[in-house]
């Protein structure tokens, strides 16, 4: 199978992890080894077996559609790295300064 550094960089992009070159090198070796250990999965004959997403036979369970208390704004913002007191502050997402 042989996972490559370019695979690792692609997955790191998907996972939003800014890895150093050194980390990419280490993870290439480690992931290749781990995937080797679990490669038996790909060879198992499981044709026709139903997949299990959840261990218990639970059907959709809904609660009554009634308003109930939730987190206050203050609590919701309490651990945020940056707020303006009413909302989370993030870097501009579209178009930079012209878009504001």
């Amino acid at each position, binding site marked *: 199978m042989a996972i490559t550094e370019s695979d690792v960089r692609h*997955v790191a992009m998907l996972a939003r992890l800014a890895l150093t070159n050194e980390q990419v090198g280490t993870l290439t070796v480690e992931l290749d080894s781990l995937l080797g250990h679990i490669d038996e*999965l790909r060879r198992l004959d*499981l044709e026709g077996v139903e997949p299990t*997403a959840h*261990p218990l036979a639970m059907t959709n369970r809904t609660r009554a559609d009634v308003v109930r208390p939730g987190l206050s704004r203050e609590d919701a913002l309490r651990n945020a790295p940056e707020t303006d007191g009413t909302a989370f502050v993030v870097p*501009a997402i579209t178009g930079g300064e012209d878009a504001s």
Partner: protein
Amino acid sequence: MSTLDLSALSARQVRDGIVAGDHSAREVADAAYARVEALDDRVHAFLQLTPELAYEAADRVDAARAAGDPLPPLAGVPAGLKDNMNLIGTRTTCGSRMLENHESVYDCTAVRRLLDAGALPIGKCNMDEFAFGSSTENSAFGPTRNPWDLDRVPGGSSGGSAACVAAGMTSISLGSDTGGSIRQPGALTGTVALKPTYGRVSRYGIVAFGSSLDQIGPFGTSVEDVALALEAIAGEDPMDATSSPEPIAPYGSLLEGSVAGLRVGLVTDMLEMEGCGREIRASVAAAAETFASLGAEVGEVDLPSAKHGLSAYYVIGPAEASSNLARFDGIRYGLRVPDAEDVTDLYARSRAEGFGPETIRRIMLGTYALSAGYYDAYYGQAQKARTRIIEDFRSAFERFDVLLTPTTPEVAFPFGEKSDPFTMYLNDVYTIPVNLAGNCAISVPSGVCPGTGLPIGLQIIGDHFAEVTILRAAAAFEAATGFDPVPPTVRALA
């Protein structure tokens, strides 16, 4: 200086002593913190101590007793809480730099219920970062040491929760178990450790790892204490739609009774797996004989698909974890790097800085397994293998009431011994299939290893919601073996 020794008292005795007026809840809290003071600079079971909360709880218990009010079932019982469980008034770090300063803004249901039953929250327990690990070596704040041998790991990921009970700093504690993270440290520290059936205990307020696998459960020094703690925390919760409406039982009062006629299945093919220590095999075989001598009907059974559990788990667990940990993005909580160029840069650099190596490894593995082109080969196959494992357990429970395996293939190992990730993962080979199938299982000490004197754990597995059956079997086994749960570091204090 306190005269109380928590190592000499069960949780029930702590409460009964308060009822009888032998000691106050305040004195119990004093005893807990005295033991922390004496040992925790070496053991490092706690990331944070919460004396304000503990003494507040103790004063409520003492005031209730003074007023002649009935005391709740865990009144004055000191408890440790794994640091992935939210409790207002504490930080909840998950053993990660990412959440180093995270203040809880709501309570985990299981924790709330434990405290409503009168328990004293002594502190928040160390753990492998985000519960990824089997040794606590992955904690960003340094490992916990095993009270049986300070040069060895206590197991993980709930290593702090196991160690604080083993060291007599608390009577009970809560941990969480996704692939063995309660039972494996239970086995390595000579404590009793229960993973309830998936859905038996609410997951609300625990920081999610693998949402189809995670369960909260208790540690104690006796089966009865674990049963009492389960009784306090179990049951449906409107805040967790996967918590089960299945009725709960008065677990702590149902332990008496004979195991004569109990159908006990020794899982032979798992016992013969490569890597299982000779002493461990001997201990489990002896446990089967003990059950036979108590009148149980002991037979042999195979779980042929369980050997694929580890592979299936190392796809499903990381896949679910990579989704759950996507929430740590430096926006709403957690670490945030300064001077980001744009929002993607902010996410990617904050995550790379906040997460440790094992967390990054799991996120990468899970993201890979879910990515285009690999989904069917890994995640799809793992889900089908999971079905096969569930079918194995189902047919085994048609013939048997409980199944016996070792909890771990070996006893507590020295720090640094398992630097290769997969070697570490192998420690959970016996516990993982139970999470995949959603069953309940308890680890109960079955003796110590000749030579090292380190504890060995027996895993007793039950069908879905058969907690009463496994607790009763564990209580009978405990009474027949007479394990002494006090480790040498504690003995040396006397």
